[in-house]
């Protein structure tokens, strides 16, 4: 009965086609079509989640797409609780971002195009979530990558924007290479692309352990690229060059979560390959810590949020690597709402002040109350303050981490929680409180229109309450809905709760002391620890490192190839070959003019002679033709008679 779910991605696709081919010139109509499509999809996604709640048996529908001599490649949809949750999250955030964009993109000359891209993205993302096999998920995976590229470089006149688009595309492509290798390894071993058939093969031990581990690690490379994990995280901060609604939708709430989704979807494989799972957890752990620490000192509001996103994604990846299926997807679910809210709030601020630098803002609270309040709610949520939704999901993660024998994951988790609280409230205090630093911009600032603030309020509501479905005391909460193999009932760990809350509170207090009361001077800290500050400020020099170890060698190699190989060797070879050819041509010319031409002319005159002879038959006299007809008739009759 859930077979109608294929309509969900189809609606935005239809909207995309309609806008591109028909309504492009009418901006208002285009945005309405786009919003209407995603809102309809949202309604369908609610129906899906309701029916999955009632009957949690996974259902699958597919048809054969390619038939390659008995090897069938199918397309289909798989609907289980994870899909249902993801559909709901994507549709909700996407429709709110659509509505918000009407305000944010107002007056942009490529308004309609923006909405068509948003629709295309929604189609791709929903398709990715619904996919039931690796080929299909790969197709949609690349489609979201494409739309991400298109939207990052949406203002392509700006060189930084188009560069960022390219960087994102190429960096994620590096991961996708691993992804496709992983798919090929696993498919060759299991003989199927289908998720559930492959999981069955894994569970019954049909795939050798070594191959399984290798395949799982390669598969994870795709997730690393898409979810901006260490060491392929460098693209995400640059991707903030795109319009802010795009950052909220694609680079915070949904697309970057695709990597997390992929790991969750293929959880069976990682459970069967604990070494690969350990790699996953370690990468997630490194990313979470590294990104959070970079986020401490950044000055661009969107970049802070970008590093926060990377760090939170690392959190999810880490806990998935530790086997916390429920915890990881739960955090994905709550994170989507408050991170989207943070970006949209930041967008609202940027919209008002026309700058990204937090040091040019300040004291905006009285001017933009709704934005400020919702932003602070989201910050509280991400910091994990009781009882907002972020608290519950972070608590789940820490609980899972505490069960792992090695305490490093738990320690890093708590540290990251503290850092998160600090950098988020650093943002809040600098942006909304204190004295206005740039008087001109401050006076210019104003609250955003309703079409932008209403999505903010809805998301704020969700940031507070969405996590309540996972409250550990709840008998039939999130864990009994989204789980792997058996329902997950987290027992509340009160010590952990208190510790993490205290850490978060102290982070907030530190931010308060440094940036509001100014009792601790950040400048002095900077002066006291110049080295760590510089390292963090320059993002651990990752971009420089890549510049040195990857881009420069490639450039040097290209230069060497050009100067030495091309000019020195290839060109000489080419010239030599050229001279030789000239000599050969001379020989050939003689041959041509004497022998070939003679033959050709002979054939031509033969043809001409035959032609001028034969054309006498073509007299133009109908009676001649009639004569031939009757002559033929006589011949035929004679032939038949004999």
């Amino acid at each position, binding site marked *: 009965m859930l077979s109608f779910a294929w309509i969900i991605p189809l609606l935005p696709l239809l909207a995309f086609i309609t806008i591109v081919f028909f309504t492009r010139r009418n901006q208002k109509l285009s945005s309405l079509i786009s919003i209407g499509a995603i809102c309809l999809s949202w309604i369908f996604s609610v129906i899906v989640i309701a029916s999955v709640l009632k009957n949690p048996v996974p259902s699958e529908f597919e048809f054969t797409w390619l038939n390659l001599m008995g090897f069938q490649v199918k397309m289909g949809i798989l609907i289980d609780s994870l899909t249902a949750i993801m559909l709901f999250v994507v549709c909700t955030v996407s429709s709110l971002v659509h509505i918000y964009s009407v305000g944010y993109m107002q007056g942009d000359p490529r308004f309609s195009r923006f909405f068509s891209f948003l629709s295309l993205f929604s189609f791709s993302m929903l398709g990715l979530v619904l996919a039931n096999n690796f080929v299909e998920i790969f197709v949609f995976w690349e489609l979201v990558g494409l739309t991400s590229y298109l939207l990052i470089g949406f203002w392509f006149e700006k060189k930084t924007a188009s560069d960022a688009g390219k960087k994102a595309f190429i960096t994620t492509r590096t991961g996708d290479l691993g992804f496709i290798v992983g798919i090929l390894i696993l498919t060759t071993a299991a003989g199927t692309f289908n998720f559930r058939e492959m999981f069955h093969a894994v569970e019954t031990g049909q795939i050798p352990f070594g191959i399984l581990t290798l395949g799982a690690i390669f598969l994870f490379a795709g997730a690393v690229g898409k979810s901006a994990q260490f060491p392929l995280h460098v693209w995400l901060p640059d991707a903030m060059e795109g319009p802010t609604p795009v950052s909220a939708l694609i680079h915070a709430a949904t697309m970057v979560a695709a990597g997390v989704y992929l790991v969750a979807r293929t959880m069976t494989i990682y459970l069967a390959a604990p070494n690969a799972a350990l790699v996953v957890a370690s990468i997630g752990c490194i990313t979470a810590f590294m990104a959070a620490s970079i986020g401490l000192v950044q000055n661009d509001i969107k970049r802070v949020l970008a590093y926060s996103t990377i760090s939170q994604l690392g959190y999810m990846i880490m806990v998935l690597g530790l086997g916390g299926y429920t915890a990881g997807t739960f955090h994905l679910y709550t994170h989507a709402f408050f991170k989207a809210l943070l970006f949209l709030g930041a967008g609202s601020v940027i919209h008002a002040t026309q700058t990204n630098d937090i040091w040019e803002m300040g004291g905006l609270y009285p001017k933009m109350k709704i934005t400020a309040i919702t932003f602070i709610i989201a910050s509280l949520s991400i910091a994990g303050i009781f009882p907002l939704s972020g608290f519950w999901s972070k608590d789940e993660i820490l609980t899972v981490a505490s069960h792992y024998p090695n305490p490093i994951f738990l320690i890093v988790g708590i540290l990251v929680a503290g850092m998160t609280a600090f950098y988020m409230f650093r943002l809040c205090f600098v942006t909304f409180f204190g004295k206005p630093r740039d008087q001109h911009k401050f006076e210019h600032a104003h609250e955003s229109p309703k079409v932008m603030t209403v999505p903010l309020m809805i998301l704020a509501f969700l940031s507070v309450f969405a996590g309540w479905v996972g409250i550990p005391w709840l008998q039939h909460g999130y864990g009994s809905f989204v789980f792997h193999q058996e329902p997950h009932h987290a027992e509340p760990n009160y010590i952990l709760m208190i510790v993490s809350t205290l850490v978060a509170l102290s982070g907030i207090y530190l931010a308060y002391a440094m940036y509001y009361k100014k009792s601790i001077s950040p400048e002095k800290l900077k002066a006291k620890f110049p080295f760590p500050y510089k390292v963090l400020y320059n993002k651990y020099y990752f971009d420089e490192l890549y510049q040195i170890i990857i881009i420069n060698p490639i450039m040097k190699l290209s230069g060497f190839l050009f100067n030495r190989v091309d000019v020195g060797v290839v060109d000489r070879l080419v010239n030599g070959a050229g001279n030789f050819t000239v000599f050969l041509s001379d020989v050939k010319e003689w041959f041509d003019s004497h022998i070939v031409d003679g033959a050709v002319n002979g054939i031509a005159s033969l043809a001409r002679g035959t032609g001028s002879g034969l*054309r006498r038959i*073509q*007299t*133009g*006299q*109908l*009676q001649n033709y*009639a*004569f031939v007809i*009757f002559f033929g008739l006589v011949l035929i009759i004679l032939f038949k008679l004999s």
Partner: protein
Amino acid sequence: MIGLNHFLTLSTILFCIGIFGVLTRRNAIGILMSIELMFNAVNINFVAFSRFVTPTALVGQIFAIFIITIAAAEATVGLAIVLLIYRNFKGINVDNINIMKW
């Protein structure tokens, strides 16, 4: 004793005369007349077969009627074309009308 073969022979002779006319006449109207002779030969065939093979069914006669009708239409159109040719070529000798050659 005049049987079917007599009529068929007669029609064959008439048909061959028609063919000869078509092949040799220089005048377009002459060619049309020869074609009419061939039509008549065919009609004789139909009526003779109708008389000797299915005397009660009259199918052959019906066919003859249709052929006469078509022949009338053909003659009308043919003569209209002849008039047009006459107007454009200042004559109706078909061996002057040989623009369909090399």
